[in-house]
């Protein structure tokens, strides 16, 4: 398992150690160990059922929402295991945000959507104002909505809604953003927009992208981690993995033999 970091060496803010997720009768994830270096985008790829969605959901403790699963191992954020007893999942999720497969805007105005996370902690109005603007800019949505932020978020197109979800997650200033197949429900033009946003964001924070689309991984990611039936088969710089995969399974996946 190689893990050459392509960017200037920074200690990883997020890493996973010996992570396993067990269901009643099988192992969904088996002993995964992986680093996520700062300011990069790591793509997690693999055939359907390989556990990549489960994996990403362990990173912000969303996996706990599914009953009957047990998590062992460590997920370290800034040196601390987020699964430690004293740590409350609510806190974790403010630091590690998530965007889902389908755009999940709340039935409120655009502004209120973005402000949601901040309102929870009763931030002051000007802080919220600034944060909303900033997050919309970072998500690449600002220009399109700045004229009327009070419009209902449901009036936006699919791609815009998804970028709003990104903005919403960014507004609480997480250092890590998890994206679970964020473009699979979008048309090509919207997909391109979101990918552009991801490319900009990866220079600011850590992004973890789950995708079944190898070409997408090739386009936007710095590193690729390949999962297969719950095992981490290979991980490395994108170019390395895609052109010179070390493991035969990896090569089969990339060339489209399965998945």
């Amino acid at each position, binding site marked *: 398992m190689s893990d050459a970091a392509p960017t200037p060496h920074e200690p990883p803010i997020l890493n996973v150690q010996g992570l396993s997720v067990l269901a009643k009768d099988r192992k969904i994830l088996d002993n995964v160990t992986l680093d996520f270096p700062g300011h990069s985008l790591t793509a997690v790829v693999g055939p359907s059922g390989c556990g990549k969605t489960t994996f990403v959901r362990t990173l912000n403790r969303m996996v706990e929402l599914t009953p009957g699963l047990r998590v062992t191992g460590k997920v370290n954020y800034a040196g601390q295991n987020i699964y430690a007893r004293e740590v409350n999942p*609510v806190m974790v999720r*403010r630091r590690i*945000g998530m965007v*889902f497969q*389908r755009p999940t805007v*709340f039935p409120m105005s655009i502004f209120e959507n973005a402000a*949601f996370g901040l309102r929870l902690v009763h931030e002051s109005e000007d802080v919220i104002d600034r944060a909303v603007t900033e997050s919309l800019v970072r998500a690449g949505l600002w220009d399109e909505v700045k004229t009327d932020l009070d419009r209902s978020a449901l009036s936006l197109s699919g791609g815009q809604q998804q970028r709003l979800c990104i903005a919403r997650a960014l507004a609480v200033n997480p250092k890590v953003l998890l994206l679970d197949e964020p473009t699979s429900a979008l048309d090509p033009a919207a997909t391109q927009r979101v990918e552009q946003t991801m490319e900009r964001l990866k220079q600011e924070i850590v992004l973890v992208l789950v995708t079944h689309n190898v070409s997408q991984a090739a386009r936007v990611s710095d590193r690729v981690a390949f999962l297969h039936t719950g095992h981490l088969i290979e991980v490395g710089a994108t170019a390395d993995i895609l052109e010179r995969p070390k493991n035969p399974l990896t090569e089969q996946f990339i060339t489209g033999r399965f998945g």
Partner: protein
Amino acid sequence: MILIGIIVALIGATSFTNFGWQFFSFHWDPPQNQWGIGVFLVGSFLTAVPALIFSMLIGIGIAVASTTYLPEYLTRWLDPFVDLLAGIPSVVYGIWAFVIVAPIFGATIEPWLVGNVYFIPGFGPPIRSDGLGILISIFILTLMALPITTLLIRDALRSVPKDLWESGLALGATRWEVVRRVAIPHGRRGIFSAAFLGFGRAFGETVAVAMVLGAATNLPKNVYDTGNTVAAQMFELLDSAIGGTGSPQFLAALAEMGLVLLAISLVVNILGRRLIASLYTEQVQGL
């Protein structure tokens, strides 16, 4: 086919209650000399509205507990339990209330209330020792409306797409915050329809109220006093009218009461059902 019979029944009901269009007086006088049904309207609202409020509040609480906080192995049998409340016939409720609950009210609850919250208007003395009256009627009606409100609100909350719920949590919200700020706004329509249909139930309930309210013809002076509702009064009058006393005014008043009851019922029901329907079509269109 014969299904038309259904429509006819409905129309027939309305046409028959048109027996009396004259006495539309809503004087608050006992219907001895002047056939004003105002007394009973007051009674109906006085019992139905608080019952609605209570059943909505409790219903929301139960629905939220069931969908958000309790594990599935518990809710699996707890939910049907609540639904069972709806199956008990009104008379059985009536007996239970009359024999078991009323004494508790009369001996314990009402004296406590009078002693401690007398400053709230309507909660002062005098009280009746037998416990019948407005307060217990509200209690019973709440119980009867509860299964409806709980069911509808529970369905409304369940209809929130899983993604939406998880998005809320992923932003660092507590379960309660997600419920309050995401799930409930999303399920607004279901909640409103719960209110309407629950109200319809409480407003139209006849027998249980008749047994517990005291069948009086006066305006209740406070929460512990007796009175009557439109539905219960109609029932009692009709019941004794079957014997034969039928001055045309009598029948006309009865018809008028029926009309009012029916009208309010229909309006409330239509509104409630409309809301459910729109919620449903929205879901089907995958919104």
